[in-house]
């Protein structure tokens, strides 16, 4: 589905701006993520990292700049010297190749775990139910929930729900996975299971952009981290540099607060 060549970045953003009314929440973000790379976005709440993530699959619109996923523009097409929003069908089509995992899981409450994972392939890709079901069972097995396929979300713990949500995103065979604070709504003892699934995914070579407060995960799994504050990227680089020897005062202040 994508037209990238192996050496082209999976995701690129230049000078992305966004305002909510008079408040500018993104003030020119540049970012580049290679195929197979795991990038973590860190920063205090209100720094714009979740908004930026939601722009990537056009759940949020932006006002200026460019975003490319797999060699395709996200959300807009050039129109003279301006950008014009894509129509609904095109937006939906691009989203189908980008997986997203939310802080609040957002599993479909009226469907079982299995049906949640099958929904996208059956409805959007028009796959045969039997084919979709087989893959859904495999994916639920991979996230450790083979015995939970027939449970409704209300019958699952938060950690189990989030793992179903990851399987649901993977069922669309995405080129890029977005995680929006995937463990922030979980009880501490359930965080580990979700992070383990994400770590496995990273090892399998999935391209991932992760907004998180889990510095341990970022240090261990991320290839690069971006530290954002006040709508700009303050500092970026390998976690060994940004997290261990931050150059910027704002990064140092944030890390000392989080680690304290």
């Amino acid at each position, binding site marked *: 589905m994508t037209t990238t060549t192996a050496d082209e970045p999976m995701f690129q953003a230049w000078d992305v701006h966004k305002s909510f009314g008079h408040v500018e929440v993104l003030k020119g973000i540049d970012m580049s993520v290679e195929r197979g790379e795991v990038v973590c976005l860190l920063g205090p709440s209100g720094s714009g990292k979740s908004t930026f993530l939601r722009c990537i699959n056009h759940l949020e619109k932006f006002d200026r700049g460019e975003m490319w996923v797999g060699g395709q523009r996200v959300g807009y097409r050039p129109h003279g010297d301006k950008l014009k929003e894509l129509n609904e069908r095109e937006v939906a089509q691009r989203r*189908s190749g980008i997986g997203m995992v*939310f802080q609040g899981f957002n599993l*479909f409450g009226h469907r079982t775990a299995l049906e949640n994972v099958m*929904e996208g392939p059956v*409805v959007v890709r028009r796959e045969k139910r039997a084919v979709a079901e087989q893959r859904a069972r495999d994916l639920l097995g991979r996230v450790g929930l083979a015995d939970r396929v027939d*449970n409704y*979300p209300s019958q699952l713990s938060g950690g189990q729900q989030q793992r179903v949500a990851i399987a*649901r995103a993977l069922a669309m065979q995405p080129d890029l996975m977005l995680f929006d604070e995937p463990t922030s709504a979980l009880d501490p003892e359930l965080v580990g299971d979700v992070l383990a699934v994400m770590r496995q995914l990273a090892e399998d070579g999935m391209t991932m952009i992760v907004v998180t407060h889990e510095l341990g995960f970022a240090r261990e799994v991320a290839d690069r981290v971006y530290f954002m504050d006040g709508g700009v990227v303050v500092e970026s680089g390998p976690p060994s540099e940004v997290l261990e020897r931050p150059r910027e005062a704002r990064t140092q202040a944030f890390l000392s607060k989080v680690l304290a």
Partner: protein
Amino acid sequence: MTATPVTDSPARPAFARDARVVVPTRHPGRWAMAAVILVLVAGAITQVIGNERFQWDVVGDYLFAEPILQGVARTLMLTVAAMTIGVVLGVVVAVLRLSPNPILSSAAWAYSWFFRGTPLLVQLLFWYFLGALYPTIGAGSFSWSANDLISPLTAALLGLGLNEAAYMSEIVRGGILSVPPGQAEAASAVGMRRSQVMRRVVLPQAMRVIIPPTGNETIGMLKHTALVLVIGYSELMTSASLIYSRTYQTIPLLIVAALWYLAISAVLSVGQFFIERHFGRGFSHHRVSRRGSRATRKGEAVA
């Protein structure tokens, strides 16, 4: 009792040895109240049955009479058809009302303002006398005489259905708004289009909130169909009134009609129970299942 001691609980105090059994609280007041109510109800029933002026024999004669049964069938048909129009159109109006397009949402608002704001009786009469305003309907060679088009039945369906749609649209809108926005976001993120998000994810979950008031509306509609008496469509109420205007047995025939309305609403309530159970999937046993999942979490920790 030789119970094994629990390791991390404090030593049992001596007085706990002959622990007493808890006895449920008794409610003597409830029994007294029940007895009073039972006596009152029994009294009322014997009163009603014993009163000859109710003419129960006439009620018995007409309960299954041909014109009454025909009226029942038509009342049922009218209820089902008008509710179908009301629900389908109501969903459309509700979705338009929530549209980001200000023209569409204002038009939807105006629709429910108008049809909720005028008496149903007036609307029925307007539809029935449409021919007086527009003798022909249509354009060019596709036009019909309004008198051919507007029969008592079509006027009844238009009047009841369009009025119902205004009420249903508000019920559906409330249902849609009750579904957390994250559901629609997750569905769009998978790549569903807006119509798919609505059909596959939002509406099925909104149904849980939509069904109970829709049950109210259906039972309300059952009785509102009696209003079509004024435009001469012969449903249950019209059939009964035609008979009592001839025989002057007004009370017994009103009882016949009332018994049928009661019986039908009982059947509808049973139907509502099953529909609610269907759309409650994944939500109905919330408490029980939570407990279940906590138990398995413990199990997982052990394994």
